[in-house]
């Protein structure tokens, strides 16, 4: 089946899960990514069971955060 991953159309096996796609795409530091499928965010606990469908649009987003905590003034 065909899905779009980060804007690129890809041919993948039917019923591929989000977790399998993360592995297949060699996503670095997967523990820090959010995944959206058709603009809906998939909970990380559902990565292993969420099966992708033909035509799905998948985006990987890295958590971005930080802050000044701990810096001396």
């Amino acid at each position: 089946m065909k899905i779009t991953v980060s804007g690129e159309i890809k041919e993948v096996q039917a019923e591929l899960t989000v977790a399998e796609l993360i592995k297949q795409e060699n996503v670095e530091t997967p523990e820090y990514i959010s995944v959206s499928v058709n603009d809906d965010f998939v909970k990380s606990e559902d990565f292993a069971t969420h099966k992708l469908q033909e035509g799905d649009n998948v985006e990987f987003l890295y958590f971005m955060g930080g802050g000044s905590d701990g810096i001396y003034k």
Partner: protein
Amino acid sequence: MIKISGDDYRKIINHAISQLPDEACGLIAGEADGADKLIKKVYLLTNIDHSNEHFSLDPKEQLAAIKDMRASGYIPLGNWHSHPETPSRPSEEDKRLAYDKNASYFILSLMDKDNPVLNSFHIEGSDVTKEDLIIEDGNQK
């Protein structure tokens, strides 16, 4: 070397001041040629931590920004955030959460609000390197 327009530089400062006392944050996008980066667009995102000492980008806004970058033909170049009361350098938390070794991390200090300081950093693990940043109306950092 990284170049940002004066307009985009002021956009970051104005937004960061408007969000005080909280930290402000966003994304930067544009074009890259080897180590040279040209910032073409600055995104102002919501700090969902609403904190003076922490920030997290709103994932929904982050997704919208990534799509806009792609539609505009730009690539993600990094992110920016403000330090309302501390210097323009990465904290231990900034380093810990800097997962992308290809990104530039902009930090704006508003310790002296009349003289904001914006620096760009390359962060890889605990190694931090200050990057050459040119603000295109003439000021170099």
